[in-house]
């Protein structure tokens, strides 16, 4: 082999040895980050079902004399028929319901420029490639025991999967991917706001 090619091969071999040492020095260094689920865990699904459950019929007398309280769950909680593909996991209707309940922390994993153009109200902007800078910035503003829902555009974008995996790497287990994405949210006419992230 020509010395020229031998030297090039040596550079590649040096990098391979350095990679092996580097990976071995990190705990689980050669393990792929886990993928987050795209379905609601039992506790949150139960909470949603409870909210959607038909309310018990009021006593006859009360029914005759009292109008339903304006904040009665039944008024809000009509199960929305979801004609979207069930294989995509968390439905837009379920997410909308959870958003109304303020039960989840929404993470927008799209590039910041897209977030500024429009996003689900209350979502935090955490683009995948900016995760390590953004996560410490927004973490103090999470509620106690947060449940994260991560979304991107939908239509096969990987940013939500990647950001969800990085959240799992932080030791947080309550993460779900909203695979239908922001496009499906908009298509269903749900609330949208624009502008720079507040945090």
């Amino acid at each position, binding site marked *: 082999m*020509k*010395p*020229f*090619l031998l*030297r*090039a091969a*040596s*550079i*590649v071999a*040096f*990098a*391979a040895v*350095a*990679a*092996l040492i*580097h*990976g071995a020095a*990190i705990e689980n*260094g*050669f*393990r*792929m*980050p886990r993928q987050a689920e795209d379905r609601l865990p039992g506790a949150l699904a139960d909470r949603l079902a409870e909210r959607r459950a038909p309310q018990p019929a009021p006593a006859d007398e009360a029914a005759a004399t009292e109008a339903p309280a304006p904040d009665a769950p039944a008024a809000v909680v009509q199960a929305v028929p979801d004609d979207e593909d069930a294989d995509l996991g968390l439905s837009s209707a379920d997410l909308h319901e959870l958003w109304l309940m303020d039960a989840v922390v929404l993470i927008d994993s799209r*590039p*910041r420029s897209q977030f500024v153009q429009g996003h689900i109200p209350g979502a935090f902007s955490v*683009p*995948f*490639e*900016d*995760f*390590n800078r953004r996560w410490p910035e927004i973490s103090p503003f999470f509620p106690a025991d947060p449940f994260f829902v991560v979304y*991107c*555009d939908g*239509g*096969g*974008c*990987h*940013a939500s*999967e*990647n950001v969800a*995996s*990085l959240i799992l*790497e932080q030791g947080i287990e309550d993460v779900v991917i909203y695979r239908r994405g922001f496009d499906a949210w908009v298509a269903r006419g749900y609330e949208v706001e624009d502008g720079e992230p507040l945090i």
Partner: protein
Amino acid sequence: MMPKRWESVLLLTARFIAGGAFIIAPIMKLQDPKSFMLAIQSFELLPTAVIPFLAYWIPWMELAAGVLLVYGVVTRPAALVAFGLYAMFTAGLLYVIYAGLPVDCGCFGGIFGGGTVDWSTIGRNGIFLAASALVLWRGPGAASVEALFVQPPNGDPARRVAPDERAARPAEAAS
């Protein structure tokens, strides 16, 4: 024949472009290999089993080739490694555009922020590819560590020849 001054400047610039990018690019990748694993996976080109090792191997190759290019040591072999890596990255980016995959580039480990792959990404890679190809073809130039320490084979002190180039011309070296 002595390289002209403009050629030396051109080669120095090419080395700093191709090598400098490879010094900056692996910083975040080596600090956060898990993110780089996910970025590679997004391209949907490689089996998952090899991705964790590649997530360490590629940045170390970049760093080694980058440092050698910038200093001008073992320059042409380093340029070959850099050219191979840039060609591989460009092919991957072209595939992403062809397949219409909405993935983040993963370039520079996100050190300059995120961005989906588009033709400007290809154009930027084309510059790096051309710079490494130029160094691979013409060698390090006069403004390099290699040129300072390697004696010319023909006695002309201005004629700086890379060791691998000298090895490739044993007849000339013997004369």
